[in-house]
């Protein structure tokens, strides 16, 4: 326990790193995933093919392999990212596939009458999606989306294996330095993850209640 207290500034820095990785990747993945979902339901076949291909490929590839690609393979293709940037890119690409599927399920849950009414009013596909369908789709998509973001927070631990000093990498460092206290240190680090994930769950519950009201 004293070791955890001694190392509190290192733990705080690692906590902020995990939080920033999760936050930045989450926001970028939300944007990219929504765009992909829109592409997937669009009337334009090439866009549908690209979006379907992307989602299928990245949903079924392990995150570690995506990391491998952005850390070890892209330098030989000419793009060299710093390890943190590579981590954010890998996490964004991977999570966007899951966000796309969650948003697409939300879109499918919106009554077809909505889209038809919008079309009969002369709205373009973009206006239809952006003004009518997506706002309603997001309400339904909130529970799966929050699950995806909680998973993202835990997935940031993979970055620890690729030279980013976040909570998981720090736990390895501390367990090596204080080998008598391995269990305490791991519990402490797990609590840090809970501190991020539990509020996310509460936010989800609050958003859901608001959405139910909105309907």
């Amino acid at each position: 326990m004293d070791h955890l207290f001694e190392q509190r500034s290192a733990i705080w820095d690692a906590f902020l790193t995990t939080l920033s990785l999760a936050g930045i990747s989450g926001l970028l993945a939300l944007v990219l995933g929504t765009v992909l979902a829109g592409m997937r339901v669009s009337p334009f076949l090439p866009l549908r093919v690209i979006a379907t291909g992307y989602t299928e490929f990245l949903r079924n590839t392990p995150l570690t392999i995506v990391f491998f690609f952005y850390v070890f393979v892209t330098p030989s293709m000419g793009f060299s990212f710093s390890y943190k940037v590579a981590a954010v890119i890998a996490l964004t690409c991977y999570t966007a596939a899951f966000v796309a599927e969650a948003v697409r399920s939300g879109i499918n849950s919106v009554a077809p009458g909505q889209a038809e009414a919008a079309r009969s009013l002369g709205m373009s596909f973009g206006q239809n999606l952006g003004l009518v369908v997506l706002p309603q789709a997001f309400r339904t998509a909130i529970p799966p989306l929050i699950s995806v973001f909680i998973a993202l927070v835990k997935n940031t631990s993979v970055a620890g294996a690729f030279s980013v000093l976040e909570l998981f990498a720090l736990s390895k460092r501390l367990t090596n330095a204080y080998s008598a206290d391995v269990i305490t240190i791991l519990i402490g680090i797990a609590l840090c993850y809970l501190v991020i994930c539990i509020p996310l769950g509460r936010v989800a519950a609050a958003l859901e209640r608001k959405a139910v009201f909105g309907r």
Partner: protein
Amino acid sequence: MDLTRRILLGGGAAAAASLALAACGGGSEDPPVEEVDPSAFPEGSTMARLAEAGAITIGTKFDQPLFGQAGPDGDPVGFDVEIGKIIAGKLGIAPENIEWLETVSANREPFIEGGQVDLVVATYTINDTRKEVVDFAGPYYIAGQALMVAADNDTITGEDSIAGTKVCSVEGSTPAEYIATNHPDAELVTFDTYSKCVVELNNGQIDAVTTDNVILAGFVAADKENLKMAGDGATFTEEPYGIGLKKGDDDFRAFINDTLEESFEDGSWAAAWESTAGTVLPTPDPPAVDRY
């Protein structure tokens, strides 16, 4: 029909013969297993328990070239493995009756404390912090931290020339901690395995890899064209490798120390070295065992 059958049978026999021959080659001689009477050991001691059971569980690394590396069949080979076999042999336990468990750095102490392993021989550096929770027999080898660089790198020659360079190691390891504490002017990059460090070195993204000299020697041996030891393998710390066992088991520790000293004298330690790490590194003198 008859001719096809004959050809098939002949081919099958030839294949079986060549498989049998392949299985024969390449194995090193296992250390001798003594006929041991369990009652020769003190009543109730760990040695008596293990000798009676005729089996022992030893924790070792499965991913360190030359010291403990698991082959495709899942069994580890290396210098640590040979030392484990020597000790088991003194207890009358044949190598086939040794259960090898993978102990990565973080779980060496928990496994010893929890009793999942009887011994740990896993490039286990002896230090005072660890002595608070486990006991050490040995050392059986003294390694040192060193640097590995690209074959054409002449700017990094040792510990003093790494300022401002990128040095890679494994997250949470002692060499990484040493660099972080003593060389804050060098940029420390960490991954979870040494092989990733080597990939980055070959990609030119980092300048040096640092860890124990024996681990680096294994990598250099596998790729002599592109890698070399900086400063001709000069080491800048001393890492005595010991055998970890349960704290307080003084009888067992004395027994292992006696076994190690015997192996230094009768040549089995040197033979173990030569068949594993000795293929790449020169045979050192055996260290002095520390009976604290």
